[in-house]
């Protein structure tokens, strides 16, 4: 009875669903061809406007659309790299209509629909500054993460890999960065869910400072990426509000797209990498020769000077310091070997990478699954990255496409093996440091009565680098799962509701053991083991309403939503010191004589309301407005909430009558302004909290009394760091878009900078996080795409990106300067390479001005005020007011130039990147090209041999070590050959074989290993580590040159 009441409507509903099947429909079929080659085009999208029906062309360019209701329809064909085309076709019931499309190639390889955050937009409706990167073209050579794919391909996006370590972190500056001590990392959004871009493994410990963390984006296999969009200006990125200050990188992963057919893809490569350049250290014979020669000219002070009476007589002291050469006792430090320590710790590393994916499904249900395995050993011994990663996505639509469900799960496991090296500081324990200084006349191993073991000098400040790499265990692993699910329902025509859930969970471990077998392990207390585990979780809920409608000549595209994100992390660690055996490694802390452990937890929340409206008039004028209202628990009560607006407009001039006489096939003017925020600081900074641990403990009696101390001052006025940005751009196309591009100019002002500054004493913490200071950025960006040649059998596409950017610290509030960029190396404590100075850019080198070396081998510096030590404007010991600005780490401009030539079955692509006008502080040369190292039986860099600086002169930071570091790099060269496959297998749809070389050539005048150096401590909140230091080169992990051979098969 009750049942029957429901059966009627259900039947009625089912009959509606079934209606199209029952009716008598027609079909349309045809071919899409290239206007130049007249060859069929694979993969063109063919759709019927206003209907949900679409298909893609096959290899021969043919397509068929069946079940089309009778009537006149408009067919639209689009394909990347070609101009779109529409055509009216009349469908007759029971018949098949024919349609042929001839598409003209264009310069740009961009999709017609762009992901802009919380939805998509038609490219022509975009009013802000948005860059796209062609994911397929960028994924050449060895790419382990998405960041590497962006290098040199988007104007104004400056990406530097920290070093050549596999999986190394990247430092990304979009339009110069907007912050001094807060994060400068962009926001990554994967399939609509923002990623919490924090370290996923507990920090390691090394004898010096721990190395920089690895790249969190190692999670996503580049082979799974379908598209990358970068929101550069605030009028576009304001939709991400508080987290958008450094730009937004939107990543869409691949989903099942083909209906009816299934696709299987295999993509694999093997590559060989070796260091592209080596440090120029003395060989064994050279070092021996130097020591012998210096011993030959040895004259001791005592031989020159009279017997002192009294011991500290003025005459005696005046006489002293004129000694020459090396004491003959240094001959005892010479061995009989000739070890190339650089060779001993580097190798040719062979990487394997295999991707397998398959996708398919029906019209309503589609899936894609992929699996990736990668094993990348480092070019230095005993380290590398191994990753296994899987991804599963499914889409389903129901109720005549009114309900759309999607879910994606990615999970990856990466195993990292580390060697100890330091990016800063420390003078013990680093592999690269010891590679530079370890005596080359000594062997790697020796055999004596106790067997064969590593040679150690017995000196405590140098260690055998091979032994350090081999004996110290330092491994990490991360398991990270990213899942999201969404349901989208069309409420009425054009109005859609969407609910999405996202989870990003990572669990990372770190295990370290310094064995007794190594002298470093002994000095750390007789073996030191550490185990730590870090868990991060981010949960996101999004609810969105979108509205799309065309009313006459007006188009509306509106999205509004709510987003709730909760972040939490949990750390636990334990350490044991003092092991009677190395047999346990890090696996049995309980046997250690001294044990410590620690744990930590934190959480924070972000709540947002957002909306964006785009209005178009006659497809000629577009206006976009954005409002986002964000609340973050990191900020002080009363300051949690902030409004982030964006407003932009565009005018498509090429649609105007007066523009028809111009040569432009496309011309668009864009203007926009927006305001965005930066919350990249730790939570709880607005509270006065009591912290436990060693900072609060004190021994009473003989036992330590565990105590607490107020660790934060609690700033009750802590609020957002805000960036306002104005952007004006012009997009143009010439000669039927065979040449296309855009030019942009922007001005960006950041105020209320979050900075740790000295608090007025007394304060619980001498530093307080406050909003103080202003930063100014401006710049121009140019992007050009050209179809240089398009003939049957030959297509040549060229792309150029160019960016010039200037930044300036406008004010630091009450502070006259902030020191930054600690100088690394022995004897360099409390030396800072850079200063933040009002009126100067971030990355301003500040120090004494080097003017030469005197006849006694003393370094001379410019000085101002004449005094006993300052004669003729020269001094050997510069004072504080002799310091000056001695360099700028920012390039005058950067560029990327890419070419792709398809010639018959060959496809050749090349990417050249360059950066011009920047200075780099060669910290490596400062510390290791000092021949005084021989006084400690340490090796040094070859340039010191011909340097007039005296043997006894310490390494003094000055303008001498700040070098011009402009460079042009041939980043990648790839030759791809399309195999004629039927001979191989009947089923393959395409097969490509390629050879690719990464980092083939670098042209530079810079004398160090590589002119491209990481921006140390970028985004660091630890003021002791220095803030916003840029352009410091210190003993980095060598960058490899990599040759790759690969195969891509599609079945």
């Amino acid at each position: 009875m009750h049942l029957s009441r429901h059966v009627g409507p259900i039947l009625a509903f089912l009959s509606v669903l079934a209606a199209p099947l029952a009716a008598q429909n027609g079909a349309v079929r045809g071919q899409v061809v290239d206007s130049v080659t007249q060859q069929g085009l694979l993969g063109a999208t063919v759709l019927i406007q206003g209907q949900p029906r679409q298909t893609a062309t096959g290899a021969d360019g043919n397509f068929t659309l069946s079940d089309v209701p009778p009537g006149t329809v408009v067919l639209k064909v689009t394909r990347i790299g070609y101009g779109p085309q529409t055509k009216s076709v009349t469908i007759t019931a029971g018949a098949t209509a024919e349609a042929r499309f001839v598409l003209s190639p264009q310069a740009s390889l961009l999709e017609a629909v762009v992901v802009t955050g919380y939805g998509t937009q038609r490219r022509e409706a975009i009013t802000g500054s948005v860059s796209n990167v062609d994911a397929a073209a960028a994924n050449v050579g060895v790419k382990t993460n998405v960041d590497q794919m962006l290098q040199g391909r988007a104007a104004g996006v400056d990406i530097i890999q920290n070093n050549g370590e596999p999986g190394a972190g990247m430092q990304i500056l979009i339009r110069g960065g907007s912050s001094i001590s807060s994060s400068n990392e962009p926001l990554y959004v994967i399939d609509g869910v923002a990623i919490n871009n924090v370290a996923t493994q507990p920090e390691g410990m090394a004898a010096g400072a721990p190395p920089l963390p690895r790249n969190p984006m190692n999670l996503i296999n580049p082979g799974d990426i379908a598209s990358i969009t970068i929101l550069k200006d605030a009028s576009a990125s304001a939709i991400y509000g508080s987290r958008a200050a450094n730009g937004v990188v939107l990543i869409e992963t691949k989903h099942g797209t083909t209906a009816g057919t299934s696709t299987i893809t295999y993509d694999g490569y093997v590559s060989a990498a070796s260091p592209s350049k080596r440090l120029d250290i003395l060989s064994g014979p050279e070092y021996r020769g130097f020591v012998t020669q210096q011993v030959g000219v040895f004259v001791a002070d005592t031989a020159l000077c009279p017997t002192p009476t009294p011991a500290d007589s003025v005459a005696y002291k005046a006489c002293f310091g004129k000694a020459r050469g090396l004491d003959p006792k240094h001959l005892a430090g010479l061995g009989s070997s000739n070890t190339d320590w650089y060779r001993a710790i580097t190798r040719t590393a062979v990487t394997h990478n295999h991707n397998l994916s398959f996708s398919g499904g029906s019209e309503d249900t589609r899936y894609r699954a992929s699996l990736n395995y990668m094993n990348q050993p480092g070019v230095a011994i005993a380290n590398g990255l191994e990753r296994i990663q899987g991804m599963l996505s499914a889409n389903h639509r129901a109720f005549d496409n009114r309900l759309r469900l999607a879910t994606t799960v990615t999970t990856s496991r990466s195993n990292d093996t580390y060697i100890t090296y330091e990016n800063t500081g420390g003078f013990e324990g680093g592999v690269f440091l010891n590679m530079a200084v370890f005596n080359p006349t000594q062997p790697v191993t020796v055999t004596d009565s106790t067997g064969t073991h590593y040679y150690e000098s017995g000196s405590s400040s140098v260690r055998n680098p091979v032994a350090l790499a081999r004996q110290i265990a330092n491994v990490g692993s991360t398991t990270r799962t990213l899942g999201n699910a969404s349901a989208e329902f069309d409420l009425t025509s054009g109005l859609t509701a969407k609910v999405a859930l996202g989870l990003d969970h990572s669990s990372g471990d770190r295990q370290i053991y310094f064995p007794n077998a190594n002298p470093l392990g002994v000095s750390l207390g007789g073996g030191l083991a550490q185990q730590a585990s870090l868990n991060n979780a981010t949960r996101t809920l999004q609810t969105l309403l979108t509205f799309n409608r065309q009313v006459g000549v007006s188009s509306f595209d509106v999205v509004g939503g709510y987003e709730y994100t909760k972040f939490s992390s949990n750390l636990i660690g334990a350490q044991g010191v003092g092991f009677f055996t190395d047999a346990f490694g890090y696996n049995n802390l309980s046997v250690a004589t001294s044990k410590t452990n620690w744990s930590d937890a934190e959480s924070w929340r972000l709540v947002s309301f957002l909306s964006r409206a785009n209005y178009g008039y006659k497809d000629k004028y577009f206006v976009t407005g954005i409002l986002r209202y964000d609340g973050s628990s990191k900020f002080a009560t009363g300051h949690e909430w902030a409004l982030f607006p964006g407003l932009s407009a565009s005018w498509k001039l090429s649609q105007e009558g007066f523009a028809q006489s111009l040569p432009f096939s496309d011309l668009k003017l864009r203007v926009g302004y927006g305001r965005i925020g930066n919350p990249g600081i730790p939570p709880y900074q607005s509270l006065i909290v009591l912290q436990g641990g060693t900072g609060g403990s004190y021994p009473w009696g003989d036992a330590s009394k565990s105590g607490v101390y107020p660790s934060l001052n609690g700033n009750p006025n802590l609020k957002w760091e805000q960036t306002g940005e104005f952007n004006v751009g012009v997009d143009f196309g010439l000669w039927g878009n065979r040449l296309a591009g855009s030019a942009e100019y922007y001005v960006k002002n950041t105020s209320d900078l979050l900075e740790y500054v000295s608090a007025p004493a007394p304060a619980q913490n001498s530093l307080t996080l406050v909003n103080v200071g202003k930063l100014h950025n401006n710049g121009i960006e140019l992007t050009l795409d050209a179809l240089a040649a398009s003939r049957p059998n030959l297509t040549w596409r060229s792309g150029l990106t160019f960016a010039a950017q200037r930044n300036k610290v406008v004010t630091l509030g009450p502070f006259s300067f902030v020191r930054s960029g600690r100088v690394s190396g022995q004897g360099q404590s409390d030396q800072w390479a850079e200063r933040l100075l009002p009126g100067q850019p971030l990355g301003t080198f500040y120090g004494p001005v080097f003017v030469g070396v005197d006849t006694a081998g003393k370094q001379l510096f410019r000085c101002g005020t004449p005094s006993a030590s300052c004669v003729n404007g020269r001094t050997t010991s510069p004072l504080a007011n002799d310091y000056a600005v001695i360099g700028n780490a920012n390039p005058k401009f950067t560029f990327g130039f890419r070419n792709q030539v398809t010639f018959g079955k060959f496809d050749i692509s090349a990417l050249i990147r360059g950066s011009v006008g920047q200075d780099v502080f060669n910290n490596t040369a400062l510390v290791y090209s000092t021949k005084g190292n021989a006084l400690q039986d340490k090796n040094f860099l070859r340039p010191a041999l011909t340097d007039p600086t005296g043997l006894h002169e310490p390494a003094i930071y000055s303008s001498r070590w700040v070098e011009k570091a402009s460079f042009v790099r041939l980043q990648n060269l790839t030759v791809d050959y399309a195999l004629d496959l039927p001979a191989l297998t009947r089923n393959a749809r395409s097969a490509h074989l390629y050879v690719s070389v990464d980092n083939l050539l670098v042209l530079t005048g810079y004398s160090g290993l590589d002119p491209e150096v990481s921006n140390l401590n970028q985004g660091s909140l630890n003021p002791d580590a220095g803030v916003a230091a840029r352009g410091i080169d210190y003993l980095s992990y060598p960058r490899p040159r990599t040759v790759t051979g690969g195969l891509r098969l599609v079945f």
Partner: protein
Amino acid sequence: MKRLFVTTSFGAVALCTLLLAPIQGCTDLTETPPSQITKGNFFRSEGEVLAALAGVYHPLIGTTGEGDYWGSSEVSTDEIVVPTRGQDWYDNGSWLDLHRQTWTATSSATLSYFNNAWNNAFGGVARANVLLDAIKGGSVPNQASIEAEARALRAFYYYTLMDLFGGVPLATTSEIKERPRATRDSIFKFIESELLAVRPDLPLTRTAANNGRFTRGAVDAILASMYINAGVFTKDAGGFSATTYNSCAGINVAGGKTACQAAVDRVDSILNSGVYQLADTFAKNFRADNNLSPENIFVVKFAAATDLGFNMLQRTLHYSQFNPSPWNGFSILAQTYNAFDSLDRRRKVFLVGPQVNVETGQPVEDRAHNPLVFTTTIANVTAATEGEGVRIYKWPADPGHVAQNNGNDFAWFRLSEMYLIKAEAKLDGAAGSSTPLALLRAVRARAFATDTLSAVTLPVILRERLFEFASEGKRRQDLIRFGVYTQPWEFKTGPEGQEPKRVLMPIPQGQIDANPLLNQNTGY
């Protein structure tokens, strides 16, 4: 646009309410730190209050640090120099800046060492203020004595600040705000009145388990030191002499006494307490078990545990003399070493000549595999060799050390200093039992088999203080009181180091930037 925003947001909120409100609330941003404590939920039991009190003691460790109060008071004098050895210890020229007294408000010694000393001491003041604010009016067990300890510690931190910088901002609440400098005299009076006020609430002695916590003796010792230095401590820059002795005579302090007499009274209070006596050997005061020394009145406690240990020997010993490897830095000036009588047993705190590993006793080599020999002289302070310079080894290695953490306590005030303060005050006209000669001979009895000292004058006192307290952080204070801090000495010969302004350190520029109410010291 705004309406659109409101409408869509309204829709979104409706959805949110449906999906989320039952779980968490749509816009709730209250966050409680899971692994830290907020002030409101603490200080409820004696255990919690004592934990916070341990936190107030912690900055005492920093007063002995490499470049903080201790380093600033030793390396800027004729006792210790940190020579540049090849690459090692150049450190932006900061050690030479310190020793040569060429510092300015922004020079390397100031930005590092003076700034650390400032931050460390004011951190202690702030911690004390947070604790005192939080327990005010409370009633945890032993409330009065805990408050007394926190106030006494705060007074000691102010003592180090007043000594280095003169007048500083005076704060007795935890509010962080810009405060002007108080005069040095008012800081002196504040320390004095605080110590006198809390003295009755402190115990005379502590149990072994509480060794190191404040006692009445510690209060008396700080006061005695204040009074003997009253000729300097009650005067702002220019008010006392950089080149002649600054006597405590003629300065009135609490209770209407002269400072010299008050110093003698405080010393007598310690001597008559029956708690302290001179150790029978000098070495007992410095060994790892020096918590048992009957002579130590106020110490910084150290333990052989990570981050809680004493690491003086790292700074002084050669790389191969200890494990972990020391840093081969701080050296004693030849003139200071040579000033010691060769018969004075206290000279044994110095290492000269062929060297051994201090743990194993085995001879050690330098990095070139030659026997390591420490020489008396340092020929070139900017290019010293590994073995140059006498080393101080007053605090011998702790056999139970954990890495560089040794358990030797560092005494700020030992009973022998009370003898010397009394002798000096009596030379300055104070009344009291014993003669200066008898007092000095009492201290010297363990140093000499036969003591030949026959007369005591002020210069004799200064020399005796050098012999007794070498490397104990007293030298700068003594040299200033005696008016000889700006005289030239080995490696400090330039005109900068002879300027009268050197008797006060400059306020680090960053501190003035942070608090514009601070005036710089005269001359900087």
